[in-house]
């Protein structure tokens, strides 16, 4: 019988650099299509899309300041999307990054506000750890419900996003907690300078977070590819039943992976505060947590691919402002482009290899639908 053999190197399931390059033609096509469609939407608004897109490019790469800005925007996206990637690889679709990042940011801010008698690097480290722990802690409930009760994480994490956002809103409204007294609008007090991430290039906003993010990507890449933990996690994500049959404790794996995913989201919030925003205010993230899904998918659910896609989305965010200022297209157009990228990736079938193997571990999954739209 004639059979066509697929070599693993060509599958998105694999994790190599060459694999990524080979597999990247479809994401690139998705991006092009997304730009075409959004170009039409811009055209309908009576604006020349070429002006709009060139404004984005100038805003993202026009000078050293804008490049720095792109990197600053890419940093939290990259960290969060790494968590998303780990989650998808391990069988978890965490839509709760938004809430986890708020809690992580609040935890990091709390520690960052403490006048600790320690050197700055330690203060930063402690604040970052607080962020990670905060994010993980906020993932405990959905992790437990998914791993041990078979309840889909999707609805639970989306609901928790609101809980997290309102909880942080409460914290910053209270001067007794982390709120800033006499603020014109509710926000937390600024973190102490000793807790702020150092700026890499003077005169720009480029901060140390980008290094953390890229290093984490490389670490996650090798962990997934070369470690016992990574292999086990991928087994659970690819076929939980088969993993269970060879003796893997699937429930525990899902639980711990979920906490780590939450940790990534928490770190994302912490880095955003300690490196860039320096204080929390209501809706400070602007939906960063939700963007991680698109970033991870466009990056082929591969940590190396995610670096590229995070910079791509970072440049959109950075350039979006200039687009609004110069040609008057709303910055939210960036979100439309992101959505279109996701939909084109689905439409082209880039995600197909993952569909049939994502079977629920125990009970009926509750999955997202288009009700919200």
């Amino acid at each position, binding site marked *: *019988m*004639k*059979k*066509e*053999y*697929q*070599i*693993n*190197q060509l*599958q998105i*399931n694999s994790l190599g650099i060459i694999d990524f390059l080979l597999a990247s033609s479809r994401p690139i096509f998705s991006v092009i299509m997304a730009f075409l469609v959004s170009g039409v939407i811009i055209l309908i608004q009576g604006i020349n899309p070429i002006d709009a897109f060139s404004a984005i490019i100038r805003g993202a790469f026009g000078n050293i300041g804008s490049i720095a800005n792109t990197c600053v925007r890419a940093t939290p996206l990259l960290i969060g999307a790494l968590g998303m990637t780990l989650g998808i690889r391990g069988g978890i679709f965490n839509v709760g990054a938004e809430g986890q990042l708020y809690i992580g940011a609040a935890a990091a801010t709390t520690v960052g506000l403490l006048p600790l008698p320690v050197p700055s690097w330690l203060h930063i480290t402690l604040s970052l750890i607080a962020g990670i722990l905060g994010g993980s802690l906020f993932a405990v409930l959905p992790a437990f419900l998914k791993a041990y009760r078979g309840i889909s994480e999707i609805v639970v994490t989306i609901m928790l996003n609101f809980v997290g956002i309102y909880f942080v809103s409460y914290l910053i409204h209270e001067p007794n907690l982390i709120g800033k007294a006499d603020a014109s609008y509710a926000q937390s007090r600024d973190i102490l300078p000793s807790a702020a991430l150092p700026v890499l290039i003077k005169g720009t906003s480029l901060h140390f977070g980008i290094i953390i993010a890229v290093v984490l990507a490389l670490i996650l890449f090798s962990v997934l590819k*070369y*470690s*016992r*933990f*990574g*292999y*086990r996690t*991928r*087994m659970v994500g*690819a*076929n939980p*039943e*088969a*993993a*269970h*049959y*060879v*003796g893997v404790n699937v429930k525990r794996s899902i639980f711990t992976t979920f906490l780590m995913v939450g940790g990534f989201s928490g770190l994302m919030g912490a880095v955003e505060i300690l490196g860039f925003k320096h204080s929390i205010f209501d809706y400070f993230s602007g939906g960063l947590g939700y963007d991680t899904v698109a970033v991870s998918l466009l990056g082929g659910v591969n940590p190396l691919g995610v670096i590229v896609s995070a910079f791509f989305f970072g440049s959109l965010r950075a350039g979006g402002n200039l687009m609004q200022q110069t040609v008057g297209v709303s910055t939210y157009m960036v979100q439309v482009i992101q959505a279109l990228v996701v939909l084109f990736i689905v439409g082209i079938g880039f995600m197909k*290899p993952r569909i049939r*193997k994502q*079977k629920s571990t125990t009970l009926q999954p509750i999955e997202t639908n288009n009700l919200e739209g």
Partner: protein
Amino acid sequence: MLQMKGITKNYPSVIANDKISFDVKIGEIHALLGENGAGKSTLMNVLYGLQNLDNGEIFINGQQIHISSPKVAADAGIGMVHQHFMLVENMTALENVMLGLHQAKPPLLDIKGTREKFNSIVEKYGLVVDPDLPVWQLSVGEQQWLEIIKLLFRDVKLLILDEPTAVLTPAEAHQLFTTLRFLISEGRSIVFITHKLDEVQEIADRITVLRDGKLVGTLNKEEASSFQLSTMMVGRSVTLERRPRPIITEKSPVVVIEDLQCKNERGLTALKSINLTMYSGEILGVAGVDGNGQRELAECITGLHLPTHGKINILGKLVSKVVDDSSLLGFIPEDRHRTGLILDFTVYENLVMRTYKDPPFDWHGKTNWGKVKTFAKELIKRYDIRTPTEIVLVNTLSGGNQQKVVVARETNGQPSVVIASQPTRGLDLGAIETLHELLIKERNRGAAVMFISTELSEVMALSDRIIVMFNGEIMGEMDGENANVLHVGEMMMGHRIEN
């Protein structure tokens, strides 16, 4: 009434039907015989409009017809009972019948009228099904009857039955045959797909044999001997004969099961007080119709399923969680796609699923993929897994080779116990033979082997000792050399026979 000429159907990688011609007369039962993958189901799916043909012509009562969808087939009077029942489990029998059926006053459901007709069909054909029970509460036999009732509602002239006896007890199969004879006496025609020779000879008027997607020939019942049919089926004369094996006298108990009870996923009793000992150097065959507790028994021994009562000891150690020691137990689960393999992983990744955490593959949490690949190459050679390299995805291998990957993974650690749960399901005869040889090898090495199968002939061919399970109980036990097929068959239906 039906003629199919030069039917050709290509799949991307294989020709499933190659210029096959096939015809059915009014009032006959025409058996379609062939191994798994010979193209029987494809041919019938084409006829039923589930798949479009690439080439060929179909005539019904002399008129050419283009069957583009099941609806066209149904309008032409063709109906099909699929191997996997096309029933909606959470709906009642009556609702299943009404699905897609023209109603008296559309769009309203004519529940009353349908129920009356349902009951009259039940009476006329003796197919007893309660119309108001949800399908999941019906026995497998009743579900089969319901499928036939659905066809009779549509007054189907040609019934296609795809492996209808695979899930039936001998008694139910007997009743099915009676019903089928009644149906042809009414002037209906039947295509009976099967790979079982004895059934063909019992029920068919004519027999068509397919092999590798090609037509081998059509015979009348009188001119077909079982030797001839089996030769046509496999291209060489092979029947499952009892496998020769060295006599092992030194036997020691390896697995001791005492008063084992457990419940299934639905919370119903699956095993009732099982007492059983497995010995080294012995293949213990477990016969029985599917779903009589065999799966739960296997999963209890492997620690995947926890008993509600009783205990299992392997070499004196109590099983309390999943046994992941690859030198103690190897498990070939019944569904290799769902539970045996990770289809989107490579061959080498699948081969190390058991031992990834042990040296030399693991070094302080880091996996040495180089060593894994070397190990995989060795297993590919040792178990004769047909694959170009170890880095192809396992889902590109044939079924038999996929199963060899599972066997290689589960037995290379020389486990004391090997549990094989329906390991040959869906494999062709050649692959079945290879698998039997591998299990005999394990037995000769001194492992305690459990071979669970619903194919009685396989159990008879392979086992040193046979137990029969029915309704969560062991109905009886006998020596493999001298077992009587009729006795085993009786026990499969739930009769106890004392030897």
